[in-house]
Every structure is written in C-alpha cells, then in structure tokens.
C-alpha cells in the first residue's frame, strides 16, 4: 500500500510530552478529516503508547521516544511508537488486561485500549533493547458520517 504522507517526532521521555505527542498526531491526521470520535481514539492510543515508553520503557531514566505517523492509500494510518528502554520479556503477559508492572496508580489497561481503538496492533520488543508498538487504523472521516 502506497504511503501518501508521514511525520516523525522525537522527544524526551517526560510525562509533560504525552499531551504534546497526542495533540501533534491528531493535528497531522486532521488532513483526513476524521470524526471527533476518531480523533479521540487516535489521541488515546498515542497517549497510551507514549506513556508506556515513559513509565515502563525508561522508568525514571532519561531517554527519547520516537513517534511516527504515516498515511496510506485507502485512508489507512499507521502509528509507530518506539523507545530504547528496558523492553518487555513477556509480551502476551504485558498485553493481558489489568496486568501492570507499574504501581497501583496504573490500571494495566493500556494495551487493551490500544487494541480496542486500533484495527491492528503489533508489539516488538527485546529486553534491554526497547519496544516498538505499531498500530494500524482506518479513518472513515466525513465519508463515513455522510453515509450514516
């Protein structure tokens, strides 16, 4: 499938940048004229993936997060979020609802929400090397709304 447009953002793994990342992704994808619901879903999955990098990938250690957003033919988007943190040793366990290695202030629902709000999710990780989350989603946008 042919890529039509893309953007890449690299930023420090600081919690204050979670909002910056999701708003930037949503602004870039506004060219597809997504519905308000789709914008909310995009912002949410970006926020979850970036938060995972900061909380689980790097912990309290400094690092950078790379966010790539691609637009393909057929109104397909791909969101890739990558860290070079400690990685995940057991990906299926990490993706289990309510599982978290964080403290009680984490719900363990991040991957469930990413799965629920995207059409496809893939996770690649190597302990000590980092984690990459790739999420694909189809944007119906105004066309979908007008057909309702």
């Amino acid at each position, binding site marked *: 499938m042919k890529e039509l447009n893309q953007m890449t953002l690299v930023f420090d793994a600081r*919690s*204050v940048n*979670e*909002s910056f990342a*999701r708003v930037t992704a949503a602004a870039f994808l506004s060219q597809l004229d997504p519905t*308000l*619901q789709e914008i*909310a*879903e995009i*912002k*949410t999955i970006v*926020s*979850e993936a970036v*938060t995972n990098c*900061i*909380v689980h990938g790097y912990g309290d250690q400094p690092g950078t997060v790379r966010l790539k957003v691609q637009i393909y033919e057929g109104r397909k988007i791909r969101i890739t979020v990558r860290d070079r943190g400690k990685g995940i040793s057991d990906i299926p366990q990490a993706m289990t609802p309510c599982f978290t290695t964080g403290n*009680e*202030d*984490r*719900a*363990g*629902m*991040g991957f*469930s*929400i990413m799965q*629920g709000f995207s059409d496809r999710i893939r996770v690649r990780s190597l302990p000590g090397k980092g984690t990459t989350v790739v999420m694909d989603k189809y944007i119906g946008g105004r066309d979908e709304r007008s057909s309702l």
Partner: protein
Amino acid sequence: MITYETTEGILTVSILGEIDHHTAAGLRTEIDGIIKKHSPLCLILDFSKVDFCDSSGIALVLGRYRLMRSLGGSVELTGLAGNVSHIFEMADLKKIVTIH
C-alpha cells in the same frame, strides 16, 4: 484541576481538563486530600468537564475506590460521555462503582 462541594456526607468532585499519566498524580493528591479532610460517605466523581482521558483515568477511579472502601464509603461516577464512557466500559468499572 478540580472543583468540589460537600453536602451531608456526599463529596462531589468535578474534574476539569485532561486526565493522563502526567496530570493524574496531581489529581490523586488533590482528591485524596479532600477525602481525608471531609471523610465523606460517598464520593461522586464528575467527568462532564473532562476533555481527554486515557487509562490513567481508570487507575484514578480504582485508587479512589480503594481509599473510599477503606474508609467505609462508596464511589459514584457521573458525566461520562464519548471516549471517557467507552474507556470505562472497557475496564468494566460498573462492577465496583455506580455509574449515572
């Protein structure tokens, strides 16, 4: 940011703005401080002025539920709409808190 009012054992906390990992820490501290000050029987969390919420909002509710339960009280949620409502449904929060 939050605003709150308390009436006859009911503490209503309205959350304003965005709930994510970055903002949740401050919200937890603020809400828990008010709970400990007023010792309500029921905590109502109002999400009607929340612009954005990710899974940090789920953890915020779960943590307040645990605190209120330890004090012999309960938690209710109101003002859920759109994405916030969808996320809370995914977490099946209605099993432990009343949702209006």
